[in-house]
């Protein structure tokens, strides 16, 4: 029986050739194994942050302090934000699927710098440990919110410096991942595969890699400046020392807003993979989707100012930032129309990945369009820092990026493990999640519109109804999450064995000689003289002999 990358001994290691299976995993440079390890760590952190969020929801069930006091609540939402943003969603799709799937999609044996990839993973773990260490040392976890706004972050006694160092190290890991993927995509594509023959997920990863490489250093510098100010008292951001707090906000968002696109672009890539496969139709407007990824990455750099409409900015700057923000909606809209057009007259298969993708179309459109309302200067003055913006970015990030991450998890699960989960249960889990999600977040739009401010542990009695509806939504949502992960995790060992191309997909990652794939991937390097999503009468056009990688269609 041929071996897969999950079997003992089937890996290359960064140092030596260890006999123990444990060390084979710890030292592995195989992109698929590294991706799996990222997945394990990232989803663990996800659940930690989810339970922190649940604690906050319980606290908010009634006005006044119940289980958390005000200070602890501040630390709780900071912990939730820091974990979700820096440890889960920013590495998220690129670290997991960028690693596992991207090299397979372009017909490469691994990424360009496998050892750097290994180092990056452990750098990420190191950063995560620093972040968590501040929970139990000193004055406790930072209470600033994940944005660390100055001057408060410079004056609070909580462990802000540790958290900033952690964010810096994690940023470093992000830069190295970006660099690695960038070089891989340029250098290791299969012969014949030009940029417009690449699968769209690779385009998403490519656009993301540029953002990782170019924007992350800005936040690194900002965090270092904040540390310098906090430790040595150099006046950079604190006005009492002659600094400028608005400068911090600018520098912070120059990274953190492109970071939002860094999260969503590879997630859109997953959508672009799933829609044609489960519609059995070639994707509509391939080039427009590919180029819209690039233009979202480009425009996304220039819109950070919309976070500062209420922080003091000239009217001209506000207007410019507002309009630039509207422009991001254009390439995003193009993608959505392309996906809908792909489904039109297709043979739609309602499998679990497709359900997640379609669900995301609903939630992300709500998240995206509510974003346009707060990109307008007038409404933003009213809605800034209310539950409306909280609901908006959870619809966009959770209902966009995370839902698509789950969609990818369901889509590539048979590829990763060579086994299939129970689809009936997976679909049920989706409905739990989808319904719970909407009940959880939608009331917040209304509460926010009526003036419920974010980051408060207490509130006026008239908001109670919205918090209580949200609470029940949260219970359903968390049930759905546990359900979904139970279905998936149990399938890793017990799922039904499936062949290399379970979904009848067309891209190269489904044309591997074994299931799960072997070490070093394709048996021979394929020649790519076809478009990535060619279907004819619901069947893939391109067929390979999986041993020789010669076309047999």
């Amino acid at each position, binding site marked *: 029986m041929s071996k897969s990358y999950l079997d003992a001994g089937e890996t290359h290691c960064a140092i030596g050739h260890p006999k123990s299976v444990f060390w084979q995993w710890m030292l592995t440079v195989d992109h698929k194994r590294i991706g799996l390890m990222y997945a394990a760590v990232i989803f663990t952190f996800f659940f930690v942050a989810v339970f922190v969020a649940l604690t906050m929801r319980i606290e908010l069930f009634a006005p006044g302090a119940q289980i958390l006091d005000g200070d602890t609540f501040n630390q709780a939402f900071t912990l939730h934000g820091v974990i979700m943003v820096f440890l889960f969603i920013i590495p998220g799709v690129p670290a997991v699927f960028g690693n596992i799937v991207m090299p397979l999609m372009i017909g490469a044996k691994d990424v360009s710098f496998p050892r750097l990839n290994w180092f990056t993973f452990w750098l990420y773990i190191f950063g995560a440990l620093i972040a968590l260490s501040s929970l139990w040392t000193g004055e406790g976890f930072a209470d600033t919110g994940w944005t660390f706004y100055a001057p408060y972050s410079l004056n609070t006694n909580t462990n802000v410096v540790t958290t900033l160092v952690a964010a810096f190290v994690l940023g470093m890991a992000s830069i190295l991942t970006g660099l690695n993927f960038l*070089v891989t995509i*340029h250098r290791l594509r*299969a*012969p014949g595969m030009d940029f417009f023959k690449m699968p769209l997920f690779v385009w998403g990863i490519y656009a993301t890699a540029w953002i990782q*490489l*170019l924007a992350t250093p800005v936040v690194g510098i900002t965090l270092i400046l904040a540390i310098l100010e906090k430790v040595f008292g150099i006046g950079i951001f604190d006005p009492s020392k002659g600094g400028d707090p608005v400068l911090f906000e600018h520098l912070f968002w120059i990274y953190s807003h492109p970071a939002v696109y860094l999260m969503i672009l590879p997630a859109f890539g997953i959508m672009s993979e799933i829609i044609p496969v489960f519609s059995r139709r070639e994707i509509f407007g391939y080039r427009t989707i590919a180029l819209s990824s690039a233009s979202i990455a480009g425009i996304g750099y220039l819109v950070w100012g919309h976070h500062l409409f209420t922080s003091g900015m000239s009217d001209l700057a506000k207007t410019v930032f507002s309009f630039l923000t509207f422009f991001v909606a254009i390439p995003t809209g193009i993608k959505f129309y392309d996906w809908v057009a792909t489904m039109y007259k297709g043979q739609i298969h309602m499998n679990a990945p497709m359900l997640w993708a379609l669900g995301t179309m609903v939630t992300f459109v709500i998240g995206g369009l509510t974003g346009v309302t707060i990109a307008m200067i007038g409404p933003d003055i009213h809605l800034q820092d209310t539950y409306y913006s909280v609901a908006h970015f959870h619809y966009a990030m959770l209902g966009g990026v995370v839902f698509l991450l789950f969609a990818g998890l369901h889509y590539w699960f048979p590829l990763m493990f060579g086994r299939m989960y129970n689809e009936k249960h997976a679909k049920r889990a989706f409905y739990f999640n989808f319904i719970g999600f909407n009940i959880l977040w939608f009331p917040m739009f209304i509460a926010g519109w009526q003036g419920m401010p974010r980051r408060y542990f207490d509130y006026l009695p008239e908001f109670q109804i919205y918090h209580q509806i949200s609470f029940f939504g949260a219970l359903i949502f968390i049930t759905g999450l546990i359900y979904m992960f139970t279905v998936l995790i149990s399938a890793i060992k017990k799922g039904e064995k499936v062949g290399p191309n379970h979904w009848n997909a067309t891209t190269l990652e489904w044309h591997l000689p074994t299931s799960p794939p072997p070490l070093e991937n394709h048996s021979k*390097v394929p*020649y790519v003289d076809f478009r990535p999503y060619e279907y004819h009468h619901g069947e893939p056009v391109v067929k390979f002999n999986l041993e020789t990688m*010669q076309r047999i269609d």
Partner: protein
Amino acid sequence: MTRYILVLSLLFSFLNAANVGMHEKLGKMVPLDLTFLNDKGESVTLRKLMDGKPAILTLNYYRCAGICTTQLNDLANVVSQLDLVENKDYKIVTVSFAEDEPYQLAATKRRNIMASITRPYVEDTWHFVIGENNSSGKLADSVGYGFEKKVFEKTGLTEYIHPGVTIILSPEGKITRYLNGVDQLPFDVKMALIEAADGKVGPTIAKTLLFCFAYDAENKKYVFAWEKVIGTGMSLMAIGLFILLIKLGRKEEDHHKKGENDE
């Protein structure tokens, strides 16, 4: 020492009159038709003295026992080091605002100062003039230079309380810079002259310099524009990486050409 004198004289000026000191008039024009007596006693217009070039203007008086000599010696030192072409890229006009000084004094001062320049220097660049018909007073007014005459009764000497400043004029006579103090850095003077020329006569290197250094109006100095330089550096690196990746293309040796993958 020079700073000490400067501070002292400024202190004096504040003590004596509110009018004494600099009242900056950036962007205003000086009347180029004012006439002055040069060191040969000829009457010439400021326009002729500047000869259509950016100019360094200093207001002094030649008998000055205070900061004037220090300032002019420093300027001589600066122009010795300045890597602009004298008489082509700039002119220097030193005007005595003391109406009672004879032009011969200007000639003496000129000889002394020119002798202190440490390299061969086109002498026609630097004019030492005195006012006629109160032209120096009008010039001082037009650049906002406030000074006061003071007769010391004990000694019977006439002295002036005045600020020390180097003023840069564009070829059209527009005031573009005030460089305060009596000791300047050649760099600051060069930047000011290049800017005064409005970028038209500046060599290419000057444009790069202008990009990298910005005038900090509050502190009256040129400061290194690190944001711009680092930003440009980063952008160039990113573009460089992109070009490199495009040029390198795919890594051919790892792959096989079409039809050769059946080995």
